[in-house]
């Protein structure tokens, strides 16, 4: 029996700093996805919301916020939080409901209205919260961690600032014609290298901004899809893995790693396990992938992802980039949407937006950024506190 579910419709609200309520972006995206699917809202049986923690109570119960805003229809509801991976948590819940036979039509929505500048921990004095403590005891912002990983790449593989800048240059070109992207301006290596250093070696143009935005997917059973559509794109694998003890790469928001002195390291590292989980469910490998959307929170991180999702061996990512393999027109374009580099991050919407982009790519509807012959795509993303997220989408 197939364990695929159908993506009948996708929709987004453009990313930006719009200054409006997050629910508005979610409703806009949801209506766009319903229109795209040709599904009436009243036929949706399950609403799965990706939560935002920066918009008060309505953000913590995002599923019902969107359900109420669209007009209560009696649908069952879930609201999920998994930091940057929230969107795929919401997708995973909806998919499981469909595969279990509890519903045929689900709506997955994530939206955020984000404050400017560094993400800060939620308010109050909370000295038992590692996310609070990392700011208080060492001023370790998110870009601090991005920089640790970037510097480590330089030390291990001889990566250069120009390599990192080249990722930004590539993505700025990819996103140039994406109507949903916030930053649509081509930049040069020199412009990237002339921008201010935020967390050495990373510069302002290499670190993703916080954004407003919304994304939604209408997910259905294959039986429902067969009745209501002739062609559709499928979700073939979803991974929401956590690390295996001991995890020895420093991750947000921790101030130390696990110790591997008594328990041996797992055979596969956490980051390597993320896409692997989705590949296994889909019955494919990285060699089958034609297009990928990965989480470039900073330029250098995109290079790590090439290796983590199996596009190349550790240390070969720079060569892949330089050879144009991951540029549109290359063998396996990465972040044809422009990535976080062109979007900025709208936390609970971002992982859903990755799936929306792959859907458009596989349908051949990614105007101005189309990856020719895209059939199988993979997303990769990671949320702090140990959230892996990856989806395999196929035509």
């Amino acid at each position, binding site marked *: 029996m197939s364990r695929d579910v159908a993506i009948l419709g996708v929709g987004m609200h453009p990313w930006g700093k719009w200054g409006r309520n997050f629910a508005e972006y979610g409703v806009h995206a949801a209506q766009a996805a319903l229109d795209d699917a040709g599904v009436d809202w009243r036929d949706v049986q399950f609403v799965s919301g990706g939560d935002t923690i920066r918009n008060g109570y309505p953000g913590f119960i995002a599923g019902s916020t969107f359900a109420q805003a669209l007009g209560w229809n009696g649908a069952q509801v879930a609201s999920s939080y998994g930091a940057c991976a929230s969107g795929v948590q919401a997708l995973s819940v909806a998919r499981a409901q469909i595969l279990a036979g509890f519903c045929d039509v689900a709506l997955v929505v994530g939206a955020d209205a984000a404050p400017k500048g560094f993400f800060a921990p939620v308010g109050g004095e909370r000295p038992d919260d590692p996310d609070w403590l990392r700011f208080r005891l060492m001023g370790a912002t998110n870009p601090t961690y991005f920089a640790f990983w970037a510097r480590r790449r330089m030390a291990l593989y001889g990566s250069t600032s120009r390599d990192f800048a080249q990722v930004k240059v590539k993505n700025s070109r990819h996103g140039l014609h994406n109507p949903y992207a916030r930053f649509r301006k081509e930049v040069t290596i020199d412009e990237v290298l002339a921008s201010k250093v935020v967390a050495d070696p990373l510069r302002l143009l290499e670190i993703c901004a916080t954004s407003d935005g919304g994304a939604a997917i209408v997910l259905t059973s294959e039986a429902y899809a067969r009745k209501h559509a002739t062609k559709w794109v499928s979700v073939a694998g979803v991974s929401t893995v956590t690390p295996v*003890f*001991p995890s020895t790469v420093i991750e947000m928001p921790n101030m130390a790693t696990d*110790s591997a002195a*008594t328990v041996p390291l797992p055979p596969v590292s956490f980051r390597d396990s993320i896409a692997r989980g989705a590949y296994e469910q889909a019955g494919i490998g990285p060699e089958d992938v034609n297009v990928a959307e990965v989480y470039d929170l900073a330029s250098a991180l995109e290079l790590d992802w090439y290796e983590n999702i199996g596009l190349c061996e550790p240390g070969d990512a720079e060569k892949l980039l330089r050879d144009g393999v991951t540029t549109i027109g290359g063998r396996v374009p990465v972040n044809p949407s422009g990535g976080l580099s062109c979007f900025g991050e709208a936390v609970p919407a971002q992982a859903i937006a990755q799936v929306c982009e792959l859907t458009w790519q596989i349908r051949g509807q990614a105007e101005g950024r189309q990856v020719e012959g895209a059939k199988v795509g993979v997303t990769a993303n990671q949320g702090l506190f140990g959230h892996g997220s990856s989806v395999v989408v196929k035509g």
Partner: protein
Amino acid sequence: MSEPKTDKPRVPAVEGWFTMSEPPALLGTRCVQCSTIFFPRETVACRNPACRSTAFTDHELSRRGKLWSYTTAHYQPPPPFIADDPFVPYSIAVVELEAEKMTVLGQVPTSVPAESLVVGMEMELVIDRLYEDEQNEYVVWKWQPVASSATENGGAR
């Protein structure tokens, strides 16, 4: 940071995570059953998934390790970080402890030039000023290069 800027009492910015002795040490815990070490301190349940122990002893971590990675923060972080006015950029180190097979973060004293940091270099633990208020100077553990010029007037006292 070579000498206290004030005569205010030095108070740990977090209670029980490090010793103020000379030399100082990070204070973790060790599972009495499987011997796994935890820092920050784990005192509730062992996080080795194969171990069901709930008993721990105190464990001082290695005072030296190798620089795994680092960065220098050029923008002032948001609260609850308490920044000096004007803001002074600072480096943060990730240090790999050989015996514990783990890495631990820590700021680098601002007296250490960022240019002197090199991945792989030997680092040692010091106690140094984090911020101060009317009453106290609050201190925290930091990492600084061993045998650099910074060591002589370093934060270790």
